[in-house]
């Protein structure tokens, strides 16, 4: 049984969580309520009057082919970012888990990108892939590949996926490495004696034992890709060319702040909020799940 120490008193605990509560109230609950309120209203073009329109904003939203396209685009973006960053991170973690000279150095280098600010990461990739001045971009054009992410939507999407995934590799790497190291060495040794080698051993022993980490990162990465990549995507191409890299988060900003359509933008935020809540619930379920031992 778990033993718990109970401290008497009510005032001190309340005081201790007060700062966090205030922050949550001011920066989350209040804007959230505001967003829900304005998602049910329509403002006239000059911002002088608002009227209550019920769920009309939502109906408009889901009737708008541009919005539906953005949902599909975001799903594609999230899927690719998650898959790419998890795949690369897992590969790197497996390599970093082996006994090699200077292993601490490699691990440190691999964790570094996590400390790079999102917009900075985007700029790095832009500088590399710029069609004229970018090292890789210019080279691609030299060898005859028509590379210009500012004109080609598919290329733009590929670039934002790369930049966003790269940012998340470090995070995934840390968790995968920790997960790999948590697998008892003797289990791997038992598998070696049983005759399991290479990829087969990885697939039948290591990966199943790593599944709790995989589930956890899957949710975390989806949340990251869907909601935390604004700076990266915006810094690369601000959603362009056209709307080819306009994800849902970007659309909220562009519609609400740039195009001043507060009602629609608020409705979009509410939709996103529901999405976050669902994903967070999933995340808590996996976090709360006990590791398989």
């Amino acid at each position: 049984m778990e033993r718990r120490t109970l401290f008497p008193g009510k005032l001190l605990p309340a005081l201790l969580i007060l700062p966090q509560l205030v922050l949550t109230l001011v920066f989350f609950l209040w804007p959230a309520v505001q967003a829900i309120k304005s998602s049910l209203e329509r403002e006239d073009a000059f911002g002088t009057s608002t009227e209550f329109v019920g769920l009309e904003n939502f109906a408009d939203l889901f009737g708008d082919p541009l919005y539906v396209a953005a949902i599909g685009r975001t799903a594609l973006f999230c899927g690719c970012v998650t898959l790419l960053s998890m795949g690369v991170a897992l590969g790197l973690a497996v390599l970093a888990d082996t006994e090699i000279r200077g292993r601490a150095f490699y691990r440190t280098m691999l964790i570094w990108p996590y400390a790079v600010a999102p917009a900075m990461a985007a700029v790095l990739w832009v500088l590399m892939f710029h069609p004229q001045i970018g090292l890789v971009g210019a080279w691609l054009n030299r060898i005859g590949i028509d590379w210009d992410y500012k004109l080609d939507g598919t290329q733009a999407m590929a670039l934002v996926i790369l930049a966003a995934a790269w940012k998340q590799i470090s995070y995934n790497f840390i968790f995968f490495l920790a997960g790999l190291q948590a697998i008892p060495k003797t289990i791997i040794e038992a598998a070696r004696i049983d005759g399991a080698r290479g990829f087969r051993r990885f697939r039948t022993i290591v990966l199943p034992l790593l599944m709790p980490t995989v589930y956890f990162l899957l949710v975390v990465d989806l949340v990251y890709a869907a909601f935390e990549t604004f700076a990266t995507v915006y810094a690369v191409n601000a959603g362009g060319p056209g709307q080819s890299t306009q994800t849902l988060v970007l659309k909220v900003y562009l519609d609400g702040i740039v195009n001043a359509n507060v009602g629609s933008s608020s409705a979009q935020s509410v939709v996103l909020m529901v999405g976050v809540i669902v994903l967070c619930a999933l995340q808590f379920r996996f976090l709360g799940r006990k590791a398989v031992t």
Partner: protein
Amino acid sequence: MAGLTLDGLRKSFGANEILKGVDLTLADGEMLVIVGASGCGKSTLLRLVAGLETPTDGRILIDGRDVTQLDPSARDIAMVFQNYALYPHMSVYENMAYGLKIRGLRKAEIRAKVDAASSLLGLEALLDRKPRQLSGGQRQRVAMGRAIVRDPKLFLFDEPLSNLDAKLRVQMRGEIRRLQRRLKVTSLYVTHDQVEAMTLGDRLLVMHQGVPVQLATPTEIFERPADTYVAGFIGSPAMNLLTGLMRRNGTAITVEDTEFDLGPQRYALPDGHPVFLGIRPEHVALAADGMAWPVEVVELLGSEMLVHATRPGGATLTLRTPNPPSGGPGMGEAIRVAFPADRIHVFDRASGRRIEPA
């Protein structure tokens, strides 16, 4: 044919030499127990034989075949680990079947082998369970089953009982012994527990600081320990070692000023040669006269008691004797003891080696 041969086996980790040359031959079907304190190199030796480590020098032959450079999977061995090392995500059946599946056996064949092993170990009812749903003893049994189904040339046991409670350990000890006798598979068993070592092994190898000190049957090791280390390590409580000098032309030893007669046998040592007089606590006899030892502590163990006594000069003696009806000696009271001549061991004080009578 020899089941296992080790030929000048050495292992260093960096500048640290863990194994300093081990030569060893196990007969086919023999169970050899390697025993020693932690850090003596016994686990490293086992891992070298398993192929989990590569030797710095020397050769390993299993059933006459040189396996020194082979991968663990190619050595035809099975190993039982201290923490069982069961695959947590697989059922008991899958745990046992895994090695066979990798070897590419057909389903029916696997089923037959696993069924045979599980009935041998009484695991039939547990085949669908996951390891976490099993008790320690059951897990131990599954680990054994996983080793048995493979029908290997050599079993390796790495302290397989040390995670079990005392009662279960005794039970599993007997079970392992019976199984090994029945299957007649050459086995190497590593432990730090001398009771396990004494009861399980056909022969024992006592290791000390990377060097094999004595290789002999359990009885031999108990009755004629090769040096003071083995004498102190095997037997509980440990053998008493008293500093003394050889006297009377090799027929007596003096400890402090008391002379102990060595009986009819004669040692080829000059008078005044520094020796240790070794006597096991259970062989020390209470006597009416003789050397006086002030009692320090008395431990009552139920049917018998341990008396710890210390001479004013600092020499200590432990005595094990049945509980006398009158109760044991009191603290500070001096007991007088005698050492039966045929129970006395003589060791050279400089080298620590056992000295046999001429």
